């Protein structure tokens, strides 16, 4: 191995360790603060959940930058060498004095295996999304377009209505549901689905789904579920603002739920067992109450910013601690 590859190995291992630390820290944060999020308005909650999903990457990037900072300074200012000793068998995260040896072969194999998991999962997810995109494109191309409403009606008696597509979201409504809804209910459904299109909820959910690989299964499920509920509630709120009647939105949610149930889709019930309260229940109860005041993310941003600044201030300590950790686990 060349010294450059040895350095790359050390940074790769440090990156994976930091991601694990980030994932663990996120787990603790969600367990401590997750229930509090329920009191936030859905738009702020949605944004916060996206940040939580990306937190392991944010923390790992900050730690990796902090660990590299002394070495980067040495590289930029040759007179300020941060290493006291070099060829001492210690793992050195140093761009000036490149390490003569990398990490143990077993660690290297394990790292490649760990890195392959998200790649394989990502490739499979992209394949499934592309297959689903082609189904939706076929439905949209052969359905009845209502340009003025921004929807496409598909010929099915099943009562279905959804917004689908990552880059080009489309609202598809079945003929069965279109004819079963009253004029007021249609207004609610269209306003709700067009809010999904505007907010790009499917794309954001796709990104959070991909970031899920950085989290434990429990947190991954929590993220997916809470993000979906927050998106639905945010769209309910937009529909309620648009038609100026929160109770009508709640009534429409229940009406569509009953139609879907009565249409024999109850066969889907076995997969309905999820943790936490049911989304329909939460949505309706939220709509029957007063709207939650907008929650500013400024405080959360300040806390995250302070934590990142602290990591940078402690760059020397992070650097040496990381070197010690790497020496213990892999050198």
């Amino acid at each position: 191995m060349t010294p450059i590859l040895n350095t790359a190995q050390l940074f790769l291992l440090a990156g994976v360790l930091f991601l694990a630390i980030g994932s663990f820290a996120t787990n603790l944060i969600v367990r401590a603060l997750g229930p509090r999020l329920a009191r936030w308005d859905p738009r702020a909650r949605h944004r916060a959940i996206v940040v939580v999903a990306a937190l392991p990457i944010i923390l790992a990037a900050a730690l990796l930058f902090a660990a590299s900072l002394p070495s980067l300074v040495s590289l930029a200012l040759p007179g300020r060498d941060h290493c006291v000793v070099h060829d001492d068998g210690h793992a050195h995260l140093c761009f000036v004095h490149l390490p003569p040896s990398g990490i143990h072969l077993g660690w290297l194999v394990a790292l490649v295996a760990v890195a392959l998991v998200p790649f394989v999962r990502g490739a499979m997810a992209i394949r499934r999304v592309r297959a689903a995109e082609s189904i939706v494109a076929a439905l949209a191309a052969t359905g009845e377009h209502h340009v003025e409403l921004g929807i496409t009606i598909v010929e099915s008696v099943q009562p279905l209505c959804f917004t689908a597509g990552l880059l080009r979201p489309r609202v598809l409504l079945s003929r069965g549901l279109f004819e079963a809804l009253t004029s007021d209910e249609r207004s609610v459904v269209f306003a709700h689905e067009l809010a999904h299109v505007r907010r790009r909820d499917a794309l954001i959910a796709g990104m959070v789904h991909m970031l899920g690989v950085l989290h434990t299964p429990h947190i991954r499920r929590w993220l997916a579920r809470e993000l979906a509920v927050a998106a639905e509630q945010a769209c309910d709120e937009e529909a309620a603002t648009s038609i100026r009647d929160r109770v009508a939105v709640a009534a429409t949610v229940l009406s569509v739920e009953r139609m879907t149930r009565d249409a024999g889709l109850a066969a889907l019930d076995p997969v309905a067992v999820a943790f936490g309260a049911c989304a329909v229940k939460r949505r309706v109860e939220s709509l029957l109450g007063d709207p939650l005041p907008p929650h500013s993310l400024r405080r959360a941003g300040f806390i995250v910013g302070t934590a990142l600044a602290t990591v940078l201030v402690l760059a020397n300590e992070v650097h040496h601690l990381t070197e010690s950790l790497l020496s213990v686990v892999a050198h």
Partner: protein
Amino acid sequence: MTPTRPLGELEAAVMNHLWSGRDGEAKAVHVSLGKRRGITLNTIQSTLKRLFEKGLLARDKVSHAHVYRPRMTREEFHRGLLDDLVRSLMHGQGETFVAAFVDVTERAGPEHLERLEALVAERRRSLERGQR
């Protein structure tokens, strides 16, 4: 999820043409769709052949030409695609791709539904009383 009948843009236009009950002979389809799009008769003929091979069209030989007709109605075609999509939701594969108005994979129990409907009715009554 296996998409059994994904369609390209031209294929969808041909299917729409045939579902609307118009002539299924290649020349007629070309007059209706091809000329406007600057597409040759050959392209229309191969599109019709491809749809036939996908099992979406049937054909009869009339004189020297094939006359195509849909093998299924638009509703049957849509039902098949929606089944594929709903099945993917059931298997938890498409949940990030689709935001349904009411999540078909997660249902409120009947007792919850009745209680919520009673709450909505009660809220409506109280709002009406407040307006009087």
